[in-house]
């Protein structure tokens, strides 16, 4: 097991970046950005995992039971909100870009060159 979750993290980051770099469509770019960000959840929860640990809720289990790290879960939650917010705003830009440029191909969006 050891390093498998982290290899998956590296794979997701590179896959997402590959998608952005080769993208011909801004909506595709935005979805790939979501993928890049999703790597951070896996990494966060991966580093905070404790083998055999319970979820950090002490409703029906006694306090002091071995549990996984709750802090990374709180961070991942914040991260999910950030993702939703940034994606929504980016999609608004994309909708406008389509109207202004008539295309969503990033290489055709050339208001600035040089």
């Amino acid at each position, binding site marked *: 097991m050891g390093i*498998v979750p982290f290899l998956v993290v590296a*794979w997701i980051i590179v896959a997402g970046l590959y998608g952005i770099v080769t993208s011909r469509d801004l909506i595709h770019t935005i979805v790939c950005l979501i*993928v890049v960000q999703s790597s951070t959840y*896996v990494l966060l929860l991966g580093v905070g995992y404790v083998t055999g640990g319970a979820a950090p809720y002490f409703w029906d289990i006694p306090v002091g039971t071995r549990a996984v790290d709750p802090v990374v879960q709180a961070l991942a939650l914040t991260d999910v909100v950030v993702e939703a917010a940034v994606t929504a705003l980016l999609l608004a830009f994309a909708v406008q870009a389509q109207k202004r440029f008539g295309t969503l191909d990033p290489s055709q969006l050339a208001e600035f060159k040089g």
Partner: protein
Amino acid sequence: MISAGLMNTLQVTVLVLVAAGATVVVRTRSRIRQVLALSVYGMLLAILFLVFQAPDVTLSELTVGAIALPIILLLAIAKVRKREQ
């Protein structure tokens, strides 16, 4: 109680599925299909978080990653497509 070995297998399986899911999302170039792939990917992530003992994040990922974001994306795509026609 699930035995440690079974848990391990489960985790590795879900991790591999997540990696494959990310690849599929990135490689899908058709917009609608990509959104569907993203939704499935969100679902897989939610399952992964459950096996990582993070029910709170699972619930968020389900509501946001697998449902809300795909809906927002579909609406944006509908908007863009209407103009492209």
